[in-house]
Every structure is written in structure tokens, then in C-alpha cells.
């Protein structure tokens, strides 16, 4: 007899408690039980990157982690990127440079780019390109996405507003 299990974790710093079946993915629980529909279901195999969340600060495929596994850990979705209701500077660059078209891949792109640049602030375009190689976009053709991520990286290193976001 398999029972539901109680799991406690934080989502974007909010303490969360939910009863889950062991076979429910973190993705399924975030979307269907907790209403976090900004986390997208793409391939279910860890290839496309649309379900990216940060688990204790590291980007992971929410489709390949069972919700029972994240007990005691912290989950960040794209909603947790900006302060309150304001957008994060990386999101601003996406808006300005037209890096989002249908928007389905955007949460995953933002989270992977943000996490990668927090570890490698000096990364150049080619390094950004290989970090984002596992996030598929079927609209923009990637150039504008890379433009936006690169613009954010350079701005944060040197330019105006660079000091406002850690």
C-alpha cells in the first residue's frame, strides 16, 4: 500500500507544505498542486529546459526530480527572480531586446542564464551559448536571447545599474 507523503520546502522563499504521491514529479506538484504555472511542461525527459527551477540555487529539470526528494530544500521559479512585482534586470534586457516571442522557453532561459552568470560573471558569449545549449527555443532563433543575456552580463560587470543587483 502506497501512501501520500508530507513534503515541506520553500518556493520562492515561501514555506510550503504539500502531500504528494511518491511518483509525482516536482514539476507536476508545482503546476498542479501549487499553481506555479510559470514552470512549463515541455518534454518530460530533461532535454528542453522549459521546466527549469533552481533547487538550493542550482538549475535542475523539475520533470526529473520527484517532489518527495525536495523535502527541506529551497525551490526558486522564475517568479522568484525579481524583487516583489518588479522585474529583474535580466528580464528587462529580454524585454528591450526582443528575446522572448511566445514565451514558453523564457522562464527556463532566464533561470539557467541567471544561475550561470552568478557563478561565472565574466563569461563571454560562447560560454553563455554553451550554458544555454540545453534550453530549446522554437521562435526567436537564439540570437536575441544571447544578445539579452550578454547585455545583462556586461552591464552588471561595468555599466549603469550594474550595482543594483547582486
Amino acid at each position, binding site marked *: 500500500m*502506497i501512501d501520500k507523503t508530507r513534503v515541506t520546502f520553500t518556493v520562492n522563499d515561501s514555506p510550503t507544505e504539500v502531500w504528494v504521491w*511518491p*511518483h509525482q514529479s516536482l514539476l507536476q506538484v508545482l503546476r498542479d498542486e501549487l499553481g506555479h504555472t510559470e514552470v512549463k511542461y515541455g518534454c*518530460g525527459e*530533461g532535454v528542453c*529546459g522549459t521546466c*527549469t527551477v533552481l533547487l538550493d540555487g542550482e538549475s535542475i529539470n523539475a520533470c526529473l526530480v*520527484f517532489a*518527495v526528494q525536495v523535502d527541506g530544500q529551497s525551490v526558486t521559479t522564475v517568479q522568484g527572480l525579481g524583487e516583489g512585482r518588479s522585474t529583474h534586470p535580466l528580464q528587462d534586457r529580454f524585454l528591450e531586446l526582443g528575446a522572448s516571442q511566445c514565451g514558453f522557453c523564457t522562464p527556463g532561459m532566464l533561470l539557467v542564464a541567471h544561475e*550561470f552568470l552568478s557563478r561565472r560573471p565574466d563569461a563571454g558569449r560562447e560560454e553563455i551559448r554553451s550554458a544555454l545549449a540545453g534550453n530549446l527555443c522554437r521562435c526567436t532563433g537564439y540570437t536575441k536571447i544571447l544578445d539579452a543575456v550578454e547585455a545583462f552580463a556586461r552591464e552588471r560587470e561595468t555599466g549603469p545599474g550594474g550595482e543594483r543587483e547582486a
Partner: protein
Amino acid sequence: MYPAPFAYLRATSWTQAIDWLQEHGDDAKLLAGGQSLVPMMNLRLVQASHVIDLNAIPSAGIDRAGDVLTVDALTRHAELEESPLLADACPMLGEAAGLIGNIRVRHRGTIGGSVAHADPSAELPCALVALRATIRVLGPRGERRIPASAFFMSFFTTALEPAEVVVGVDVPIPPGTTGSAFLETVRRTGDFAIVGVAAAVRLDASGTCTDVGVAVAGTGDRPEDLSEPAAAIVGTTVEDERVAEASRAVADATQPRGDERASSDYRRRLTQVLTRRALGSARDRARASAAR
């Protein structure tokens, strides 16, 4: 695409995981990084009665004991990529890890999981065969140490007995000057390799090759140990013509399968080109380390 229901068990030690494996038999699956197992469960290629999660077992990470690098089975690919210890003593392993899947897969996937899964196209098993690594295995009857070349038996098939688990990998760091390299060809970044080649070269003080290890992924039912044909460079100063000769011998020793991704001939041709480049790069690194 959701997995079939299963009972979830969180192991806090290897012996507990082994006990549960004995108790629940073949329908119990070990969950390490889950980057191969969970897709197969989502696709219903695998249905488990019990999933034994290994992530709460403490990991010893990467360490060096004399001339041996010890790598805990639960070491994640990203840790291999970023380890200064590996970058210094055995850069090929971190290089191979950096070619796996995508950044999220590398944050979760583990070396023990990759080894136990034994995909014949996978990077780490191939690298471990070329490095003459030893797989450390624990089971109800204690620990066994199995050479990587004997551990991988066929497609997704290893020398693991029922209720045995991979607990770590030992990589010898031979004395003297060595260099190693891993190269692969993929259609799209993150795919499994069409062909991957791992090469390790050892030189003596005069720059003469005393030992070579070569393994190839993607050509057979397991990572193939092709050190024997590659030994054409042993006893030479590893000039380009000798490397080319050895690469031809390595490619000739393969009988690759053809499939929808690549024909048999293409795989053999890739084996030759990648072996030539990997051996050349391993040689250059060995020479550079001698010069330091």
C-alpha cells in the same frame, strides 16, 4: 507521461540500500541523479515497485590518496567538471563530464549512476576504461573491486550482481608525465556521442611513450578498450605519423553498428579522426607537463 506508482525509500547508508535491494528484488530501482532512470520511468520503459533514493547518503566527493584518485559514486558531473584536483591530476575526466547532457543534467547526474547505467555511448564509462579505473562495488557479501574494462559487459549490462551497488571509482595516477584527452562528435550539443574517444598517454624522461590507454564509445555494445591497437605509439616519441598510424589501427579494430544516426562506415571514420586528435592532444599535454 507520468511514471507508474511506486513506494519511495530514502536510504541514509549504502548498507541500508543493499538491505532494501535484497528485500525488494529486481523491481526495486536505485535513484541517484535520476537523469537516465527518471526519463525511462516517465516513458514507462521502466516500472519500479520501489525506488530507493541514494541522495541522502553522505558523499566523500573527490579525493587523492597517493597515486590514486578516489571518486565517490554520488559525485555529480558538475563536481567533476569543476574539481581543481581533477583538473590537475586527470583533466580528461572533468572534460568528459562537461560533455554530458545539459547544465541541469550535470547538476544532478552522478558518476556512479552513469557507470551502473552503462550506456555504451556514455562519456564517463569510456573515460574510465581508458584511464584503467577500478569500479568499487558493495554488496551483501562485502566489497569487490572490478577493472572498468571488465565491469562493462554489454548494452546497459554490467558485472554487478543482484543487490550490489557501485559505491565509488578509483582512478590511478601513474607516476611520470601523463596527458589525457576526451573528444566526441554529436549532432546537437548534449546528445549522446555518435563516437567518443578517450586517450591517455604516458611519456618517460626522454619523451618516449611507455604506455597508452584508448577507449571508444558508440562503436560497440560497451566502451571498447582499444589500447592494444593504439600501442603502435609505445616505444616511439609519438610523432604525428605514428599517431596517424595508431589511429588507423584503432579504427580498424572496431566493428561499429549502423543506425538512424550514423552508418557503420561513418562511425569508423569518426573513430579514426577523433583518436588521432585525442592522442595528439594527450601527447601535447604530457609534453607540456614534462616541461613544467
